[in-house]
């Protein structure tokens, strides 16, 4: 089944001007997303996931704080070349975003109806009555009970799960082709998380939009993503489909992430695995492999030279000097265990 890429990001870099000089939060990211596909982006806090997603939307102030480099081709058009006005037409219409904390992402002084109607009135030229109808429809679609009544309420009157549904209703109101979900379930409790995930997967199937799903929760990835990118310190260290992520992780960082998922079954004889150390600061990016200081397999080469993202199979890419050796060693280790 041949699918045309909806979004192609080529060597995207996002620099920020700070008081202590320029930092590069996203450093050369290349990936693509097909129509109707859900791609996951995982990584620890501070690895540049959110910066990447907000760079695709061009949400940072380009005059004083941020500078983008590279290409973001959305349906073949480079978003970085568009004027501010063109970008405003695309945002919320073809390209939408939902955020981590729904309460702080909704404007507290306007009703949820106001906030859903706003994008409809901007992008679809609806008048207030039509927009109201459509907003109620969107609330119903996202599973909010009694939408006719709820629409006149303020964000603080809703529960966290309901707030996130409202955010989704806002983001999807103009039927975007691409939805960027930036940790949409992190601030919610587990049962609500599952509901929101189901909702996103369902709407993805129903409306056929592409989804970039940013999370640090591998369980969430397993549940809804077809492909995954693992990010570390502003770069993609591994790109693979979801099945391979769990059966054959290549990068030591990915392995670490997977090993640190708590086991629910069997006896718990070992302490939970953790990756030693912390993410280095963006002010002091190592010039070799960025993960070297925390990697159990690192040697001189890793500290000296930065590896490139290398294709291991048609669907799997990895940024590591030693992944083949590690793979071999693991295989030997596992067979000796049996």
């Amino acid at each position, binding site marked *: 089944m041949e699918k045309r890429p909806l979004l192609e990001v080529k060597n995207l870099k996002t620099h920020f001007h700070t008081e202590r000089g320029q930092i590069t939060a996203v450093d050369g990211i290349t990936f693509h997303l097909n129509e109707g596909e859900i791609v996951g982006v995982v990584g620890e806090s501070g690895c540049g996931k959110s910066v990447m997603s907000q760079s695709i939307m061009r949400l940072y102030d380009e005059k004083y704080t941020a500078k983008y480099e590279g290409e973001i081709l959305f349906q073949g058009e480079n978003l970085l070349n568009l004027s501010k006005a063109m970008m405003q037409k695309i945002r919320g*219409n073809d390209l939408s975003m939902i955020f981590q904390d729904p309460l*702080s*992402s909704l*404007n507290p002084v306007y009703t949820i109806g106001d906030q859903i109607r706003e994008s409809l009135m*901007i992008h679809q030229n609806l008048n207030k009555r039509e927009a109201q109808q459509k907003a109620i429809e969107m609330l119903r679609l996202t599973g909010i009970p009694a939408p006719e009544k709820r629409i006149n309420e*303020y964000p*603080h009157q809703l529960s966290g799960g309901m707030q996130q549904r409202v955010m989704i209703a806002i983001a999807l109101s103009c039927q975007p082709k691409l939805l960027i979900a930036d940790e949409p379930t992190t601030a919610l409790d587990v049962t609500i998380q599952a509901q929101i995930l189901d909702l996103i997967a369902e709407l993805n199937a129903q409306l056929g939009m592409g989804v970039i799903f940013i999370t640090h929760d591998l369980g969430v990835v397993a549940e809804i993503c077809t492909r995954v990118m693992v990010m570390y310190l502003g770069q993609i260290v591994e790109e693979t489909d979801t099945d391979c992520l769990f059966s054959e992780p290549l990068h030591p960082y990915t392995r670490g992430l997977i090993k640190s998922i708590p086991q629910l079954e069997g006896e718990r004889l070992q302490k939970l695995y953790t990756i030693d150390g912390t993410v280095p600061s963006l002010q002091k990016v190592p010039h070799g492999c960025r993960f070297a200081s925390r990697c159990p397999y690192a040697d001189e080469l890793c500290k000296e030279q930065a590896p490139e993202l290398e294709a291991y199979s048609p669907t799997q890419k990895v940024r590591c000097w030693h992944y083949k050796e590690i793979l071999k060693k693991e295989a030997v280790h596992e067979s000796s265990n049996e």
Partner: protein
Amino acid sequence: MLSYLFKRIYSLIPVLFVVSVAIFLIVHITPGDPAAIILGMEATEEQIASLNEEMGLNEPIVKQYLLWVGGVLQGDFGQSYFMKEPVLDSILSHLGPTISLAILAEIVALIIAIPIGIFAAYRRGSFTDHALMVATLLGMAVPSFLLGLLLMLSFGVYLQWLPIAGYKPLTEGLWTHLRYLILPALSLGAIQAALVARMTRSSMLEVLNKNYVKTARSKGVKEHKVITKHALRNAFLPILTVIGQSFGTLVTGAVVVETIFNLPGLGQLIINSIERRDFSVIQGVVLFVTLIYVFINLIVDLLYGVIDPRVRLERK
């Protein structure tokens, strides 16, 4: 809502009681004899004593206080010893200029301050931002009497666009009324503008980093609407507080500017009454101004609820 209003008005009683006691004591403890001043230099001891007796100033102080408060409660602020007219009449006749001036000064302040504050916040860290903030510092540092004199000199004396001083009531036409108030309003409004601009800037800066501003942008809302619709309304509560305070200051504290521009406002009334030891007028004006102040705060509190639904009281 209505019960909230009643609760607020109810809570005014202790405030007004404390103010009335304080002002009564201060006026009566400070040295100076009204009878001596009314009668002039040549009055004899007996004349002064008999006038004091006549005005009730020889009664025990508690009795004097109760008599005064009893009158006030019935809407009678007493008689001015000096002007021989009811205190309430002199207050009302001096209220017009003060209120007009305060409103105009506040309008001037807001028209200057809010755009400056928003713009500086939006361009935080830029040269314009720094320049505007230096200007507001200057605005706060220059005393209003100096600014008043400078304005008087340039627009009144050299350019002769506006009258130097004086006052014409609204009944003589809106423009005539305003012409006399523009310069004093500018000199009073400048400081308030500086305060409000700085508050607007810092409040906007905080709000512009909020997630809902990001959400608005991600919806494709135009930048000017992001600022005026999504950010400003959220940033407005602290700004409103400052506006309320500044309006209170303008009503009560325009004494110096009123004197310079010779406006017959409350400031002049109270200064003159203090000089004349006109006890009942001083007490009356202070109590009246307290009422205005408290009333402004009440309005500000009610406006909070209009702006921010989270402040609204539960209606059940």
